């Protein structure tokens, strides 16, 4: 890399990481200022762990992410298996068009449109506070589904269609041939889709904001209501912990990938 490129790369990454560095540094501040560093302390980490609201929100977020990712993976994989076999016609292309809707519409519109549906349904069945775990779960499954379908479909396309037929000729039932012959070859796509769904759900704020009620707070929503007031460095402590865990995960997957590639090279 030439020197101008190096400087440019450095500046871009400085820009991307400036707020994160600020957040990490000030999470160790001994006063509650987010502008002036007074001294080093771990008090905000202690404050964070004694905050029951935040801990409950963290728990809610994880439950929601796991549940919505699992449901979306099952429904989405089944959908992809079906869609893959359909002939290319108007029906198929309109189903794919609908699948793209949640990815194309702005999140705020998706959130608002689902809120309108839920509120209307609530009015029909005569319940006021319908927004809560059920509705936010439906919303998360809905925006996760396209990502699962679109990561499983390419794997199905790469799979030899004769594989399932051969298994059936050898005496497997259609269901058994799917689990024995097709599923192993598409499982990387399923795993990718599930991880994507999980992380999207963890991080979502906008759609959650419109589809949940006061009874079920996720972490992003708790953060939102805290940033309405003056933020104390305990939010920074929380974000620092999230940042470190994501960083560790990323390094692990990167190392695993690099190792896999090196092995492949050796085998060749």
């Amino acid at each position, binding site marked *: 890399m030439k020197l101008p490129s190096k400087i440019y790369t450095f500046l871009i990454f400085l820009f991307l990481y400036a707020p994160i560095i600020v957040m990490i540094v000030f999470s160790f501040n001994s006063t509650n200022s987010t502008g002036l560093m007074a001294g080093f302390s771990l008090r905000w980490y202690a404050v964070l762990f004694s905050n029951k609201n935040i801990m409950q929100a963290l728990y809610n977020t994880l439950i929601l992410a796991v549940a919505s990712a699992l449901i979306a993976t099952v*429904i989405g994989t089944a959908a992809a298996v079906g869609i893959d076999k359909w002939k290319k016609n108007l029906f198929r292309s309109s189903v794919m068009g609908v699948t793209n809707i949640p990815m194309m519409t702005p999140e705020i519109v998706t959130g608002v*449109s689902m809120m309108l549906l839920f509120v209307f349904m609530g009015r029909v069945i005569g319940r006021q506070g319908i927004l809560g775990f059920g509705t936010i779960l*439906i919303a998360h499954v809905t925006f996760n589904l396209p990502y699962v379908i679109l990561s499983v479909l390419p794997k199905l396309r790469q799979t030899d269609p004769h594989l399932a037929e051969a298994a059936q000729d050898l005496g497997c039932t259609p269901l058994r041939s799917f689990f024995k012959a097709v599923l192993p070859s598409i499982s990387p796509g399923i795993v990718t889709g599930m991880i994507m769904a999980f992380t999207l759900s963890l991080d979502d704020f906008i759609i959650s904001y419109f589809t949940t009620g006061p009874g079920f707070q996720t972490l992003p929503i708790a953060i939102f209501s805290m940033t309405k007031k003056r933020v104390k460095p305990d939010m920074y402590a929380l974000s620092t912990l999230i940042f470190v865990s994501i960083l560790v995960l*990323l390094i692990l997957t990167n190392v695993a990938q690099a190792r896999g590639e090196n092995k492949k090279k050796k085998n060749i």
Partner: protein
Amino acid sequence: MNKKTSLGNRLVASPYLLWSVLFIVAPMFFVIYYSFTNSAGAFTFENITELAKYTDTFLRSIWFGVLATIICLVLAYPIAYIIAQTSSNAQRTLVALVMLPMWMNFLIRTYSWMAILQDTGIINTFLNKIGIGTIRMINTPGAVILGMVYNFLPFMILPLYSVMAKLDKSVIEAAQDLGGNRLDVVRKVILPLSMPGIASGLTMVFVPSVSTFYISQKLGGGSFDLIGDVIERQFQQSYNYNLGASISLVLMVLILFSMAFLTKFTTEGEGMVI
């Protein structure tokens, strides 16, 4: 047996079909339904005529969104190219570093910019110490656009990088061998070949920028209302769902039009290459 499997193929997809009709298609109809009714459920054009009041907000959102998108493109293009030129190990690390901030909660990252830019923030504390004095940065249009560029820059870098990583190096070399100078090579070879990446980067930055609501509240201090802010207020504060729905509808139509425009524009670009 063939008949049986085709029935099976219909059946496995049916939970998804039902789900998408109930929770993707039906909500869109509710947006339209609420846009054209009043709170009692009677048909009306009131929500649509009332939109005239928000013309300034719409124009400001589009203007800010366009600016943020252009700045992202200008910043991202060189970095995507630089990353694509490095070794495959370095590429993997750099791409991971571009993606890493996206997994952090965007509320906190935006809030952190507040701490950097505000009058008692890090930059101004420093400027005061060295005797320059306070410069007003927070609550300006510039701060809002900075927030958009910051939050959505990775959405521009990644698609650009992925087309540039696939660029055939021999094509560039051929252009150089045929006597093209560096500018020619960029303009006539690299730029047209990276059009698909530019197109998806532009949509991926413009759509969230034009519809954002948090960034403008935090970094604009509430003085630069954007469409997202108005929609949020209708649903979470004034509970005027009908007006909120009509604003969302217009936002959606606006985005569909700009995307159609973009696809037309970029496919024409591709056509020129061929």
